């Protein structure tokens, strides 16, 4: 049942295997493919944006199309690329790090993936059906509620569906981490990546419902004639802004925290030291998550909330610099006195520190409300968030992929290609976005289709576009690396990096059931502890016995597909009431599958202990 065996099956069987899988390791691969695809798509849109802005008053794309590009770039990157790629890492690693054979809700886990995928596909169908959403990824009303066409409807329903998937994923990880830890794996012995997974999932749990409600209200306004955001009916467009940012700000920490977790593990492994100030790191993670819910109005300083609200939110926002700083310094002191080995995973992590620090500091500058009156909605903000998102999240994903690739696929990504990717992407990144800080203050608002000649903005934009091309080259080299490694790469053992945590104590890629015997955890960095005491692997906490595993099922796929159909029904019923039948059919498929799920008992299956011993040594 392990991935190696799956490769020997025919294509159809493999496909069916993946469509029905509830194995977190395979779901991780699905997320990686889905998220990777959307990253390329979002990158392509970014390239189109940059080409349009290469010179003043360019007409590479039309005004309306530009707005579609920038909206879809932001939406795709955040919801369909960054989040799923992070979910790929969480799925691949978290159960292994806590010594679990499975996640708490394998069914929900797979449902979460398919909902994300079908939501994303629904959203992107808009390109071919009369135009993509064009009101920005923030979709501020009333622009979004009054835009003609169906673009924004696709935004609303696509995000609603994929958002539901994310919420399920979040609950799954929370319960997995609480209930499925191996014996001895106390909370304060969990690797930091697992901790960040935990806090991120809690943020998802509390942040996504606000988006859900916001999207419902917007859907009602657009499709059913309600007046939440319509001033003529007594509505108020600022409600959308609040709901969006109550979700939106925690969302950016949902993205960055797992990246922080990756860096913590990578730094510790490749400097051969335990993480400096582990307790403080955990505390800081929780604190960032907590404060993350009290600052959303810093996106709304110019909305006119008044000086009192602006000041409160300004100070609350600045406070986040403290726990983040704690992390930065703890990382530096993890490296301090270590035996630092620099490879691709480490390069991305090391590059993260200055890049993210710059982004964080421009964040604090933005938090100064009176200064934000100038920064807001200019390229300064664009520079800020690409510095934290690309310099933090994307670097983190790259670091994590290089670090865990051998665990996921049993092969190490090529180092030379990895370094080429890194340097082109890194240089391109700074070229693209550093200059944008200045462009913003020189009078270039964001979301501008064209800028005028003679306004001093030409050179900066040209440099920025050149940088973007470097990033594209980097991304393509990475893609090449993945292909070449999967064809030619050499197999490695379970522990290629001299790892410290539990995932390195089992074969690569891990067997279907992860751990033949659950390990006994005796402290932080459990595998390291065993190694320092001269043992090669973990001491088991139980005798070899039968292992209970969940059964594969197609139902999550069917349910998501049903919602996908219903999505089209909702969108088009305004034009023609007969589309309501699509709503009923789609919901019928979805509810029918739910009904089957609840009526049909599914107790999973057992792997007998006699079958376990067949050659799974390290």
């Amino acid at each position, binding site marked *: 049942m392990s991935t190696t065996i799956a490769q020997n099956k025919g294509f159809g069987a493999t496909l069916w295997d993946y469509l029905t899988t509830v194995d977190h390791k395979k779901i991780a691969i699905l997320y990686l493919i889905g998220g990777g695809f959307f990253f390329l798509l979002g990158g392509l849109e970014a390239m189109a944006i940059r080409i349009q802005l290469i010179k003043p008053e360019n007409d590479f794309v039309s005004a309306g199309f530009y707005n579609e590009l920038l909206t879809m770039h932001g939406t795709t990157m955040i919801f369909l690329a960054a989040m799923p790629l992070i979910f790929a890492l969480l799925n691949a690693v978290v159960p292994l790090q806590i010594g679990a054979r499975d996640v708490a809700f394998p069914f929900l886990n797979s449902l979460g993936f398919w909902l994300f995928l079908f939501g994303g596909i629904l959203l992107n169908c808009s390109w071919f059906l009369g135009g993509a959403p064009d009101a920005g990824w923030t979709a501020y009303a009333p622009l979004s509620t009054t835009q003609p066409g169906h673009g924004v409807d696709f935004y609303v329903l696509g995000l609603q569906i994929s958002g539901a998937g994310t919420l399920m994923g979040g*609950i799954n990880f929370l319960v997995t981490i609480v209930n499925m830890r191996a014996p001895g794996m106390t909370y304060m012995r969990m690797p930091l990546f697992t901790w960040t997974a935990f806090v991120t999932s809690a943020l998802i749990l509390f*942040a996504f*419902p606000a988006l859900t409600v916001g999207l419902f209200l917007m859907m009602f306004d657009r499709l059913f004639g*309600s007046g939440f955001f319509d001033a003529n009916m*007594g509505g108020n467009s600022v409600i959308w802004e609040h709901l969006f940012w109550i979700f939106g700000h925690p969302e950016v920490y949902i993205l960055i925290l797992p990246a922080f977790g990756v860096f913590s593990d990578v730094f510790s492994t490749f400097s051969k030291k335990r993480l400096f100030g582990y307790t403080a790191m955990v505390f800081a993670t929780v604190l960032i998550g907590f404060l993350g819910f009290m600052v959303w109005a810093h996106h709304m300083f110019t909305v006119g909330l008044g000086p009192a609200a602006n000041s409160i939110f300004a100070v609350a926002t600045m406070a986040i610099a403290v726990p983040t700083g704690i992390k930065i310094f703890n990382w530096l002191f993890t490296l301090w006195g270590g035996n630092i080995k620099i490879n691709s995973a480490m390069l991305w992590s090391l590059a993260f520190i200055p890049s993210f620090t710059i982004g964080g500091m421009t964040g604090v500058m933005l938090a100064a409300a009176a200064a934000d009156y100038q920064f807001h909605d200019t390229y300064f903000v664009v520079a800020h968030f690409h510095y934290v998102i690309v310099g933090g999240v994307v670097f983190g994903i790259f670091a994590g992929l290089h670090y865990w690739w051998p665990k996921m696929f049993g092969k190490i990504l090529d180092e030379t290609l990895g370094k080429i990717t890194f340097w082109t992407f890194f240089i391109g990144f700074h070229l693209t976005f550093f200059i944008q800080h200045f462009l913003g203050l020189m009078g270039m608002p964001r979301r501008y289709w064209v800028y005028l000649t003679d306004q001093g903005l030409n050179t900066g934009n040209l440099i920025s576009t050149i940088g973007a091309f470097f990033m594209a080259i980097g991304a393509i080299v990475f893609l090449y690396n993945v292909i070449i490694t999967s064809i030619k790469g050499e197999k490695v053992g379970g522990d290629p990096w001299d790892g410290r945590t539990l995932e390195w104590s089992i074969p690569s890629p891990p067997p279907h059931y992860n751990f033949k015997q659950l390990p006994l955890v005796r402290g932080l960095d459990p595998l390291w502890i065993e190694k320092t005491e001269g043992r090669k692997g973990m001491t088991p906490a139980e005798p070899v016995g039968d292992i209970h595993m969940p059964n594969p099922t197609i139902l999550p796929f069917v349910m998501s597909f049903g919602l996908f159909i219903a999505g089209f029904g909702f969108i088009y019923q305004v034009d023609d009431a007969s589309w309501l039948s699509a709503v009923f059919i789609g919901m019928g498929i979805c509810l029918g599958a739910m009904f089957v799920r609840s*009526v049909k008992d599914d107790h999973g299956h057992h792997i007998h202990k006699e079958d376990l011993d067949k050659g799974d040594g390290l």
Partner: protein
Amino acid sequence: MSHEDILNPKVMPEEPEKATLEGKNKFLGFWFFLGGETVLFASLFGTYLALKNSNNGGPTSEELFGLELVFIMTMLLLTSSLTSVYAMYHMKNNEFKKMQIWLGITVLLGLTFLGLEIYEFYEYIVHDGFTFRSSAFGSAFYTLVGFHGGHVLFGLLWIITLMARNAKRGLNLYNAPKFYIASLYWHFIDVVWVFIFTVVYLMGVI
């Protein structure tokens, strides 16, 4: 634990809903879900509060709301909370029949509640001409109360399905957690209603 033990346990443990790992997971996961639901309803309440005076020339909350019906609805829902507590009491005592009876009563109360709510909406729409599209207030009112009503409906369907599916085979460690979290859900619906009758109806008429 083997299938046999789960489906036909020799002795029912003290807390059957948490006796298996699946049960524990369901239990915890569902509570977390309720934490998220809290934010969901808060967003709806916040929106309602922000828009409750935006009647756009249409009827206001003072003109619309009568308290008699709401009082009856409240009593029904509160009582259904108690009956579902009884059901869980009997579940823990492994008295399946009694549990089914009390769940049945809960469902009846819930259905009546839903019927009254539909009647209320009908009155507003037909007699007062107050609809989802009348004003921002109308949109917010129907959305908030309707979301709650939708939760009631879903809860009823859920409980009915559970009762029907397990009517023949009785209580076991596989379905006990399902009954338990369905009852948690039902209580949560009541929690939300407490705020609805306070914030929407009572505060709407003073």
